[in-house]
């Protein structure tokens, strides 16, 4: 019973891995990779809920009576596109950050910002 729902377990595990990477890693590229893993887990989740046991792909043909629900699959195509746009934008920002700060480490960037504000106080 528990193993039968293994796809949902994969979703949960991937989701946690993704979130952990976003929170624990200071490298901006790694953060984006984490974000991607996190989003991918949701894609798998949507694909899982559309699946019908024993059903075929939802393509019309002779003798096909049982097929998977195509709607969640279509929905997730949209979400994948959104995910790609987010990744592209995130990477573009990382490039600009590298140009502006000379680093893509969260700690370095934060330190440089703090320094700048401290100087102003003096």
């Amino acid at each position, binding site marked *: 019973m528990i193993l039968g729902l293994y796809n949902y377990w994969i979703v949960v595990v991937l989701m946690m891995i993704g979130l952990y990477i976003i929170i624990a890693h200071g490298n901006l590229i790694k*953060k984006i990779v984490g*974000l991607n893993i996190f*989003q991918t887990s949701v894609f798998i989740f949507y694909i899982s809920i559309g699946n019908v046991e024993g059903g075929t792909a939802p393509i019309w043909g002779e003798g096909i009576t049982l097929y998977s629900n195509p709607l969640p699959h279509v929905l997730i195509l949209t*979400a994948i596109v*959104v995910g790609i746009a987010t990744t592209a934008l*995130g990477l573009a920002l990382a490039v600009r*950050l590298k140009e502006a700060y000379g680093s893509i480490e969260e700690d370095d*960037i934060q330190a440089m910002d703090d320094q700048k504000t401290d100087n*102003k106080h003096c």
Partner: protein
Amino acid sequence: MLAHLPILQVIVPLLAAPTCLILRKPSLVWLFTLLASASAFVISILLLQQVMAEGTLIYELGGWSAPWGIEYRIDKLNAFLALIISGVSTVVLLAAHTSLEKEIPQDRQTLFYILYLLSLTGMLGIVTTGDAFNVFVFLEISSLSAYALIALGKDRRALWASFQYLIMGTIGATFILIGIGLMYQMTGTLNMADLASRLPEVPQSRTLFTAYAFFIVGVCLKLALFPLHLWLPNAYAYAPSIVTAFFAATSTKVAIYLLIRFTFSVFGVEFSFSVLPLETLFLALGLLGIFVASTTAIYQNNVKHVFAYSSVAQIGYMIVGFSMATSAGLTATLLHLFNHALMKSALFLALGAVVYRIGSAELNDFRGLGRQMPLTMTAIVIGGLSLIGIPLTVGFVSKWVLVVAAIENGWWPVAALILLGSLLAVVYVWRIVETAYFKTPEPGRKPVKEAPITFLAPVWILVSANIYFGIDTRLSVEVAQAAAESLFGVSP
């Protein structure tokens, strides 16, 4: 034509965005953007009139009937929100051309307007659509363009703020997506009205609870509920002034709309407030937000930061109203939503005028501005008074309604705390007033001229709106009340 208004509300800015690419010349693009935003504003006025007179409007996209097709469902609540968004967007845009001269290089200005229109499209889309997945798509349209808009700020810290917002915002949006997925799994529908009728019939299982929890956390990230507000202050402080004025008035409001829509019309107030301890949770977080954010605002040295933290505090007031789960409390939330949009757009736009003249929003550089930019500073003072909640300004109206709602609910201590929170606003507004009027500018600083008329006009339109709706509350209170009551009437 009139029958197609609900879709035109979204399509007009959406199609205007790529058209900007053809026009190319920044001043032309600006005029065109202004025109598109103004037509969205006119459409929202017409829609609100129609909804107030005839009740909910239903528009089926492409003629496919719901729940198979996507429908746009305009009721009092979303007509009200669309009016706020398109109205603020239009007035703020009036100043855009002047403000961008100093803040964004010529060759990027066209792109700025495109992003601005897309962001407007996204927000209007979220409030008009009646389909849960459509909400997610529009949410991402508005968020992605928002990240890019914030990154256009001059300071390099804008990039960092934008990146942080991107991470937090995407986590929030993905949580919302998970919530919507679970709702679909339980009911097999994505249409909000259909969801509302089917959700009570499905077993009250843990899945449903998880769906609601994911959705709420995602939305709270987007609306910058304390303590999920960390992305907001820097994003507002380093974004171009026009962007800040627009977003401060609209983007968090859209998230509050989603919170209200899904809590009251989709899940129903009985479900929402019984599965999660929303009453205590939101009351506590709202009050904490008011006090922590207001106190932080007092210690900021950048005026944009002051008002950004104050925004987090004001969201606290809206959440306190929400947590009452009464029609009066919700009216207060909606009213404050409207009023706060007026105050913050006026304040941030006036700050934009200051930045235009002195190139900085540091409190120290405000010394002597009271005499040098009298009209702009008066606008900031009136905006500040409104923030505090002085009678004859909109801030007073919504605080009054909120306090009355709290007392009606028997929450005396809460009413007292709300008033105490206003005192903190007095402190941070006073710091700005003191610096601008009673301190002399650094010796040797070049004299500062008053902001140009292109800035003063929109700022004063917003300031007069602050005063007008503070005196003549018929429109705002009536609509907010009608919207709140309809939510309680409809909810199962």
